[in-house]
């Protein structure tokens, strides 16, 4: 079954009073909602709170959800706005520098370790981008959203999204280059 149809079926169950359907909906979208919030806020607890707020808002507004629309587009817009609100509440003095620690395991091969290190570098670089840019990159890559869908979620025109996506990736490459340069310097 198409992913959107699965979401619509769950929403129908919620509307008929099936309480277990709420859990199904959360289960399907919690990771993505959390990832978007986490990439914007760079703080696990705050990201969980923002994702929770987003789910609560979505639950409360489910009766008004237009079922001809795509659920994820509607829901991710709520997540994006909830994370932005939380970002505004973050004190500018309290710069979040959460350490993206790697979960190393004895079973890790060299290739795995390299991959993990690369992911951590990208996470650190993403933390330096603006919320808009991070969201655009996250939506574009993680769920392969089209530019039009990203435009709907972020309320930015699709032409601007395309320009912003290119610029964000370029900026990300620059940040990574600087990071790698610093790491190489630290080695000597």
């Amino acid at each position, binding site marked *: 079954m198409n992913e959107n149809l699965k979401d619509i079926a769950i929403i129908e169950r919620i509307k008929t009073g099936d309480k277990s359907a709420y859990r199904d909906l*959360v289960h399907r979208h919690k990771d993505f909602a959390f990832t978007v919030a986490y990439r914007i806020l760079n703080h696990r607890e705050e990201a969980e709170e923002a994702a929770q707020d987003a789910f609560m808002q979505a639950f409360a507004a489910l009766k008004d959800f237009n079922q001809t629309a795509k659920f994820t587009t509607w829901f991710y817009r709520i997540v994006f706005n909830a994370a932005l609100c939380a970002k505004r509440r973050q004190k500018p003095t309290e710069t979040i520098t959460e350490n993206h620690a790697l979960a190393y395991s004895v079973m890790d091969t060299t290739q795995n370790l390299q991959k993990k290190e690369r992911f951590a570098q990208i996470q650190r670089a993403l933390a330096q981008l603006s919320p808009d840019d991070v969201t655009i990159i996250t939506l574009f890559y993680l769920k392969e959203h089209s530019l039009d869908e990203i435009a709907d979620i972020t309320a930015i025109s699709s032409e601007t999204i395309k320009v912003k996506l290119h610029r964000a990736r370029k900026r990300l490459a620059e940040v990574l280059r600087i990071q790698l340069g610093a790491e190489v310097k630290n080695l000597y």
Partner: protein
Amino acid sequence: MKLLTDDEIFDLLDGIAPTEIHQRHQQLMALDENYRQYFNELRELHESLAVLPLESPSLAFENKLLTKWETDQSSYKIPFLLQILPFLFVSLLALVLVGTFVFWRLQPSNNSGAGNGFEDLLNSIDLKMIQRLLLCINSLLLLLIFERILKKRWKRQLEEA
């Protein structure tokens, strides 16, 4: 040969570049070492972003959220009562005042004047009954306020757990 712009390189990586850009890219890859290095850097980033894993919230996330939602849902009816109770109280008070005023005005002013009519009215009111009624309303209000405070604390404890 004219180098590709960043936008053109990203179009290539996203698979939406026209054939002309593909051809220029092939030539540059074969001839220009700097371009090859720069393109590979962006390609690596593009590929890494595509496989970057999703983050997962804590294990308690689902239960915490659903408990919060259920608590929110169950506490919806109480604020409604709390909201109308003051209006009910003020409306009753206004009704009593208007009633008293009308009753006082309608009293026949034969020999002892309007003041006597009002005194008669005061004498006719059963003060004990009014006291009991006010006591009931106040107790009800107090109970509702207590319930609200306790529910708030309970909710906070649930969120912290």
